[in-house]
């Protein structure tokens, strides 16, 4: 029988150090825009606080227990011919001690856990900026996000604008299967269901653009169901709301439309012929049968609402940068980019027609 050789003492630490090194080097690809570890809102900060407590405790436990294991492995190495060690069967005292210590450690974690559960369950009654919380309805669809502002009468999709320092009171549902709304820098995630409303809230403390994602497997394109949270300063948010309210002039004005909002007291700018043609194509090619170009008075949502599409950061639910080239690619080769989405053009569109459509969409700011 072959004799065992005791492993070189430095195998285990070296192996793990190499692993750690690779991992940390791999990590040198920050920044991390979707990270849970840099909270910028109150909900996420409360969560982070209790999470970091568990991280510190877990690190201590890890060092102690793995340390004991490694110590035992090296201190008690034996050889085949060695005499038998002392045949101990156990120790009641030791059992009691090492049952009570973990219980105490867990009790230390349990208290802030329950506290945070209750504090995150309640929507605050006032925001940091003194205003009442703003209601936003979130409706998950396969595979995009619909956002409605009931107090403002606005419907939009895939890009959620909120004012900084305002508590957002999210009322969430699904149009079809279970999805999950997750914007990690501001709050944990919450699943959305077809048959009941779920709630979430957060208050953003800084302005900026923050990516979010669907976090519950929802079918073929679950991997491409992202969105962006745009935290605006109060004036910027108001400007956005005003632009959305101006959308109604396009929907119900039967006259040749002036998509660009005229400044007060000014005559509307002349209608660009390419833009006018694009506007006609938007109807005649069937786009408007699924997509509303206005955010106002939207009843049914089949495809994502396209209000403000011209200035959105991303298209195709938060992952394709909103450039003319990508917009063209999306219109002409939707199924290749995102297989199985509902969007299949009812009739062919030529390259020149796409140019006109894009010119029109670009004016929807």
């Amino acid at each position, binding site marked *: 029988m072959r004799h*065992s050789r005791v*492993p070189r003492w430095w*195998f285990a630490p070296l*192996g793990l150090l190499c*692993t750690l090194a*690779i*991992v940390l080097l*791999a*990590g040198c*690809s920050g920044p*991390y825009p*979707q*990270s*849970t570890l840099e909270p910028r809102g109150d909900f996420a900060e409360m*969560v982070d606080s*209790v*999470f970091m407590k*568990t991280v510190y405790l*877990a690190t201590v436990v890890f060092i102690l*227990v793995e340390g004991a*294991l490694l110590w*035992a*492995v090296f201190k*008690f*190495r*034996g*050889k*085949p011919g060695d005499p*038998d*060690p002392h045949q101990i*069967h*156990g*120790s009641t005292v*030791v*059992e009691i001690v090492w049952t009570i210590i*973990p219980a105490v450690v*867990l009790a230390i*974690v*349990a208290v802030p*856990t329950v506290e945070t559960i*209750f504090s*995150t369950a309640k929507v605050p009654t006032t925001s940091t900026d003194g205003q009442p919380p703003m209601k936003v309805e979130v409706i998950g669809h396969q595979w995009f996000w619909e956002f409605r502002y009931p107090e403002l009468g606005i419907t939009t999709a895939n890009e959620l604008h909120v004012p900084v320092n305002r508590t957002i009171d999210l009322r969430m549902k699904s149009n079809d*299967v*279970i999805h999950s709304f997750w914007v*990690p820098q501001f709050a*944990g995630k919450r*699943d959305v*269901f*077809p048959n009941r409303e*779920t709630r979430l809230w957060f208050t953003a403390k800084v302005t900026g653009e923050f*990516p979010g*994602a669907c976090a519950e497997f*929802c*079918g*073929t*394109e679950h*991997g*491409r169901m992202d969105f962006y949270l745009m935290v605006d300063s109060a004036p910027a948010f108001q400007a956005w709301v005003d632009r959305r309210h101006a959308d109604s002039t396009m929907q119900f004005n039967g006259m040749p439309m002036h998509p660009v909002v005229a400044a007060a007291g000014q005559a509307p700018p002349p209608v660009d012929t390419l833009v006018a043609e694009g506007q006609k194509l938007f109807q005649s090619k069937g786009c408007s049968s699924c997509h509303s170009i206005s955010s106002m008075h939207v009843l049914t949502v089949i495809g994502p609402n396209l209000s403000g599409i011209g200035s959105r950061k991303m298209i195709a639910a938060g*992952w394709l940068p909103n450039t003319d080239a990508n917009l063209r690619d999306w219109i002409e080769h939707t199924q290749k980019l995102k*297989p199985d989405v509902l969007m299949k053009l009812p009739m062919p569109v030529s390259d020149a027609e796409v140019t006109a459509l894009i010119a029109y969409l670009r004016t929807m700011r």
Partner: protein
Amino acid sequence: MATTVLEPTQTAAYAKRSVLVEWLTTVDHKRVGILYGASAFVFFLIGGLEAEVIRLQLMKPDNHLVSPEFYNQLFTMHGTTMIFLAVMPISAMFFNFFVPLLIGARDVAFPRLNAMSLWVFILGGLFLNFSFILGAAPNGGWFGYAPLSSRQFAPGVNMDFWMLGLQILGIASLAAGVNFFTTILNMRAPGMTLMRMPMFVWSVLVTQVLVLLSFPVITVALILLTADRTFGSSFFSFSAAGGGSGGGDPMLWQHLFWVFGHPEVYILILPAFGIVSEILPVFSRKPLFGYSAMVFSMAFIAFLGFGVWSHHMFATGMGPLADSFFSLMTMLIAIPTGVKIFNWIGTLWGGSLQFRTPLYFALGFIAMFIMGGLSGVMHAVQPADLQQTDTYFVVAHFHYVLFGGSIFSLTAGAYYWWPKMFGKMLDEGLGKLHFWLMLIGFNLTFFPMHFSGLLGMPRRIYTYPKGLGFDGYNMASTIGALILAVSFMVFLYNVIRTWRSGEHAPADPWGGATLEWSIPSPPQEWNFAVEPMVTEKDALWAMKRAAGVRILPEPARVSGKGIHLPSPSWWPLFTAIGLLIFMTGIMLKRPWAFPFGPVSMAGFAIAAFSIFKWSYEPVDHPTSHQAH
């Protein structure tokens, strides 16, 4: 132990049977075990291949190696395969081969039922994988959440394969549950009280209790889903668009699934605990520290395991009371688990550690399971879990406990028990190479996932965009996965080389503490020529102490004439075939009309006929099996 040569008795001529027929009709627990193990290993390699393709797809952002639809099939089948077709049946290989040996018995309580479980498992696994050939592998996740699994959102046959495949596999597990529960309670050698049983046997007993109590829940859930998908009900479908009346609740599925699903993960880990509890004492040359504490903590874990299921639903908005309850219960379960880890370290402490391959893997298990356990405690904090759940942080956690835990332990068991099963020693050098490659590959694959998860990478996504910082971690994971693949090739090479020209194994190569090491390697068909008498736990060490030796003299291979063994039978296999046809028929019977079409009725008839013949199969058939 006495080795008597038994007098040959006059037996009826035993018809010469082909090798294939012998294996198809075997009811010998050792052969059933080997068939479990061989099939499970093949499924494990398939599941591993699925994982490798997943990792190649995720290696870089915006990758197009596979379509999103195929990716979803890959991860669904990877999870389903690894849980139901790999870990559980590899554990079943050890239950089958070693529970009778460890308790000093000649076979299990219900040998034909045992064979039926095996065939139902093999046919169920083939049924599930057959879906790939149709290009319609299950694609709704291994957990099959409603309403994604409903007809409306999963109109193809993919989820029918999943639903019916799992139902078939559940029947195999339930039958085995009944079998091993009865075997352990009723067939222990004289003197082997419950508190003198080997720890592995305890782990099997507790696991079977979990199976018997949790599998009926998934059975019911799958029946309700079958009713929704095939017969037009709406248990889980809220909308009426799928054809039913609507008004169902997707949350109902989640509760039913996880009331089964959480005990299921303890079903996956407890046998692994048992194996480690067998290996550590032998290679430390001292008894398991705290045997009673180990028994009670295991029972407590199993009991509490039924009280934590909604920690899988922390993001569903159950309300603060429910969230608090399940957080606290989940933390509670960490206590007996910690006790077990400390007792294992206590077993090593003060021992004389013999560094052979089984010990390497057992130590790897403890080290990796500690890490998986710690990330599990982090999940127990519901608000923190709102960030962690459905991200790669969870993927890291459960791979640390299921791979770092179960797979490392099952591998340890393979090296430990290989000599007894096959009469050959696996090569030590290759075993150690396997260990180091597996340890490094495993950590390189899964440790980075803690980070990518916390940095915002959700689960079950077929790709991810550039610029979120996930790229490096994913690349590291993919490299680790490739190293893991190499480690399994090393193991395969070891197996094949040993098969052809390996060192022959004695009865007791390790200085074992338990009864299986007292009989030849591999055992003769009847296991024990003479029933062992047990006076204390670690029965074989006790016998060795009484005889004043470290290793007993090599037992002779004797004639078993006169020992009656259960007769081989075709009926377990035919019952399994009938069941498979019945389930296939349900899938073919669409749209809904009379519930069971001709195929289902035929399957039912075959199964019913087989069970009838089985029940009336004579015990002392003229060609009744006498050991020869």
